[in-house]
């Protein structure tokens, strides 16, 4: 029996009965994303004000309109129109989704960004940080009210190269999780050091009734057999 993995994954069950794992993003990476957005907004406003300064009175009016748009709508527009990613979030590989994994909509995005005001109270995101740290999926108050979630964007996967080995038929029946573990061992071998590979394989040396160095090839062979001919 394997214990459920010790991580922050958040399962969404779809109407098709599939469990989709989402990976909520923690305080630190979100703070960095926000800092990037803040800097970017400052930059945009600075540039625009310089341009608007040449327009005189009209520029002042336009300027305060712009200040309004940038300070209250920057996040909302990006989140809704750019698949839940403001530039800062995009940079840090994050995105905003609804609790059920669907894209964030206008009302949810507006809500979570309006309530940002409360998260910032009494200074420097204090309430938001507290709420984020104590919540199992790292929600700040705005996320709680809007029913949204900040998650890591899925990275594109590259097919792992399985080590060459002669297919070996397992001597006994494998349970599902044992089968997954052996396949995982073979798939991850490129990322592991020699010593670690040996260490992992030697755990299974006794049940397989071989000495540790042989266990590596044995396990790879079993993985190859499970996968089937290429």
């Amino acid at each position, binding site marked *: 029996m394997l214990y459920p993995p010790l991580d922050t994954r958040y399962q969404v069950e779809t109407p098709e009965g599939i469990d989709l794992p989402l990976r909520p993003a923690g305080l630190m990476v979100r703070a960095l994303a926000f800092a990037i957005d803040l800097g970017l907004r400052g930059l945009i406003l600075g540039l625009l004000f310089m341009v608007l300064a040449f327009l005189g009175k009209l520029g002042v009016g336009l300027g305060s309109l712009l200040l309004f748009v940038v300070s209250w709508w920057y996040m909302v527009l990006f989140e809704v129109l750019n698949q839940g990613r403001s530039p800062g979030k995009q940079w840090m590989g994050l995105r905003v989704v609804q609790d059920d994994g*669907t894209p964030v909509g206008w009302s949810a995005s507006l809500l979570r960004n309006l309530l940002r005001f409360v998260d910032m109270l009494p200074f420097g995101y204090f309430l938001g940080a507290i709420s984020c740290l104590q919540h199992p999926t790292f929600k700040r108050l705005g996320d709680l009210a809007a029913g949204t979630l900040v998650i890591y964007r899925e990275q594109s996967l590259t097919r792992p190269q399985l080590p060459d080995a002669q297919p070996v038929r397992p001597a006994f029946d494998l349970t599902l999780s044992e089968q997954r573990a052996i396949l995982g061992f073979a798939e991850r071998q490129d990322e592991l050091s020699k010593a670690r590979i040996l260490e992992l394989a030697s755990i299974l040396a006794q049940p397989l009734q071989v000495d540790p160095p042989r266990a590596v090839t044995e396990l790879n062979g079993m993985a190859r057999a499970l996968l089937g001919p290429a």
Partner: protein
Amino acid sequence: MKQSLFEQRHKAEWDQFSLILGQLERGKGASRIGDFPQDYRRLCQHLALAQERGYSSFLIDSLQQLVLRGHQQLYRHRSRLGANVAGFILAGFPRLVREQWRFVLAAGLMFFGSLIGFALLVYLFPDLVYNLIPAEQVSELQSMYDPVAGHFGRTTERAASEDWVMFGYYIMHNIGIAFQTFASGLLLGLGSAFFLMFNGLMIGAVAGHLMHFGYGQTFWSFVIGHGAFELTAIALAGAAGLQLGWALIAPGRLPRAEALRLAAGKSVLLICGVMLFLLIAAFIEAYWSSTTAPAPMTKYLVGAALWALVTMYLLFAGRARHAPE
């Protein structure tokens, strides 16, 4: 079935699906869109099979990614805002305001009560104003509404470009206040109550003070027109905030988080109406309230008409059975 055989059989399908997903994500109308739900459910079946047969993590993870992307394209929350703006303005918003009448009443009492109450107090005891507003600002205000000096200390009417300046300023300032009043309701409604009363006291202090000095004419004729929309909007924003707070204080049979989420969904619609009101108010304030050409009587009449309009709208719009949906 071995994993490699499974992959061989379905790889073409998955690649095709991923191609269509890419098109959909970039917002292009994809070809063969009619088959999308079917393809998606087939993919779900493949994922379930792969998990059940203990295939390798790489295959399961990449199928999971495809399913997640498909899920995000197939299931979306219909935004109730964008769907029918006209229906919301003509019927949805006033209905919502009436539905939440308890909060609207409470917010209205806090805001208008403190406004009128403090205005009277300051009118009777003029020194009170200095408790709330610093002395320099008071004298600034006085010169601004001085009937001799014309509006805003200028003898001529403002140029069109200046109306534009003020329009931008009013939007920034007023909608900002409304947003604050709403958002701080999350602090058990205390924040909203504070901002409602604070703004009520400030406006009341200014009104009472100017009336005491006999500048009532310039002040009221300036304020009455856009006040219909602006003051109502602030009160409604407060009501939306109180609703948030109340969901936390008395969630009923729901868990607090759930009650908050439901209340927030409704209150954000109120806020959209509030923004609309404030846009109208900023427009009136910049282009009508600031003109000094019409006689004060005209301004009072127009102002009264606007107040009547807002009241009628909130009380009666969308009551008919077949109101525009």
